[in-house]
């Protein structure tokens, strides 16, 4: 019992720390990539290649003066960024970061908990994530903040629907909503492909919705600076602002992990069981593979951000309700049809 607790605690801390570090270096990566795409150099002062820049930013955030507006609702003003940060970190619990590692005959799974409603849990956490933005924006008692909060929440609710529907098609195919089982089903061999091969439309919808849910460009209307100053975090300063910004990067990391798990085989990599490697090595290589996939998607986020312009608000809503939702319903029906035909004709 005690060893179990210790192992889980260590796992939680490691995953938490990894999320933070990845998020930190995403900010660095973002700036470097932006610089590359705009033919600039980007941060290069703090350390070699500016590698210490995120640390410097962090210190700056902590050191800045902390301002809580007089007319704001203080408790809620503080609660907002806390919720944003909390929900950002919560999803990591159900993601299978790797297969089990065997130490001294004991198997230690690299997933914190394999609840049998993994996908739904992820979804539940996602759906409460919107409160961080809403509460913060409202409590600031600032019109721009409120508008940003309202935009954020309506956007997130709208895209949640399409996202859920796209996952339903996937779940119909896999027959389980445990993330661990979904990953295991995608293990290599015997022409067993990653889910993205079977669910290309679902993957696209999910990807677009993930962009919207993380409030990333081209869907970053809640904080679009040309219209709303800073959006929902206009009034925030110091580390509370840092929390919001940080939560966005953690969300990016986690959603990339989810995409990789659901559609790109998670910690599986091609020929993983054909190379004659030891179990532990396969697990470690699996973790590396998963992170490679994650980094690719984080890169995709940034790539899109610096190439695609921002949508107009009505375009955003039209895309969500009039294109993505019908499309995902069609995808569900198609999946159902094919599942039925497969059962009947065994192919």
């Amino acid at each position, binding site marked *: 019992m005690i060893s179990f607790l210790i192992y889980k605690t260590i796992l939680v801390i490691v995953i938490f720390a990894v999320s933070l570090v990845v998020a930190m270096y995403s900010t660095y990566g973002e700036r470097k990539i932006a610089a590359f795409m705009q033919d600039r150099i980007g941060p290069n002062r703090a350390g070699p290649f500016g590698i210490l820049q995120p640390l410097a930013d962090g210190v700056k955030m902590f050191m800045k003066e902390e301002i809580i507006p007089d007319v704001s*609702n203080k408790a*809620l003003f503080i609660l907002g960024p806390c919720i944003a940060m909390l929900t950002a970190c919560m999803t990591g619990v159900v993601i299978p970061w790797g297969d089990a590692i065997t130490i001294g005959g004991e198997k230690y799974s690299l997933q914190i908990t394999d*609840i*049998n*409603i993994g996908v*739904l*849990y992820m*979804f*539940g956490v*996602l*759906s*409460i994530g*919107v*409160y961080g933005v*809403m*509460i913060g924006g*409202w409590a600031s008692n600032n019109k721009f903040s*409120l508008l940003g*909060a*309202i935009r954020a*929440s*309506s956007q997130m*609710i709208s895209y*949640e629907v399409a996202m*859920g529907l796209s996952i339903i098609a996937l779940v119909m195919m896999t027959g389980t*909503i445990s993330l661990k089982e979904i990953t295991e089903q995608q293990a290599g061999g015997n022409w067993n492909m990653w889910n993205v091969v079977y669910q290309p439309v679902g993957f696209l919808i999910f990807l677009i919705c993930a962009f919207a849910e993380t409030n990333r460009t081209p869907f970053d209307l809640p904080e679009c600076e040309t219209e709303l100053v800073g959006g929902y975090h206009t009034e925030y300063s110091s580390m509370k602002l840092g929390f919001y910004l940080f939560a966005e990067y953690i969300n990016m990391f986690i959603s990339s992990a989810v995409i990789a798990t659901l559609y790109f085989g998670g910690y599986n990599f091609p020929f993983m069981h054909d190379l004659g490697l030891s179990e532990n090595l396969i697990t470690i290589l699996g973790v590396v593979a998963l992170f490679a996939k994650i980094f690719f998607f984080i890169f995709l986020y940034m790539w899109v951000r610096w190439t695609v312009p921002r949508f107009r608000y009505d375009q955003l809503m039209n895309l969500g309700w009039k294109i993505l939702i019908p499309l995902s319903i069609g995808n569900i029906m198609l999946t159902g049809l094919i599942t039925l035909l497969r059962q009947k004709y065994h192919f």
Partner: protein
Amino acid sequence: MMIKYIFYFLAFVSVFSALMVVVSKNPVHCVLYLIMCFFSIAGHYVLLNAQFLAAVHVIVYAGAIMVLFLFVIMLLNLNTQSEPHKSTWLKFAAAITSGLLLVILVGTLKGSETMVMPVGNPNAGLIKNLGNTLFKDFLLPFEVSSILFLVAMVGAVMLGKKEIK
């Protein structure tokens, strides 16, 4: 034993937050307490081994419906002053009637501890069993509820759309 304490904790949270929903002056606080209440109820579902229900409860109620609530309240910018004043008599009557209801409800619990409860399948809340129940025993209500949702949708569209002259 552990589960017993968790139950008491959750029960306390749900009752406390439900009370705060009624007592709070600020409508936004009310909504936030209600969300808290929903979370603790979802916790109860988990204790009853109905994880699917718990997750759906959080997604649908806390994640969607309450957001809309919060949305409307934030836009209306309700505050304590705009609440209409109710007459003392009305409050008095309301207190008495709801007090009576409380007495009745608490009274019914008397003797229920010795009651023989029908025992169902403890795993009924798991997603597979739930699906089987829904699509076998309760197929008709399940399908009829789609009519119910269609009605709600048609109604919402009708009330929402502009009058075309």
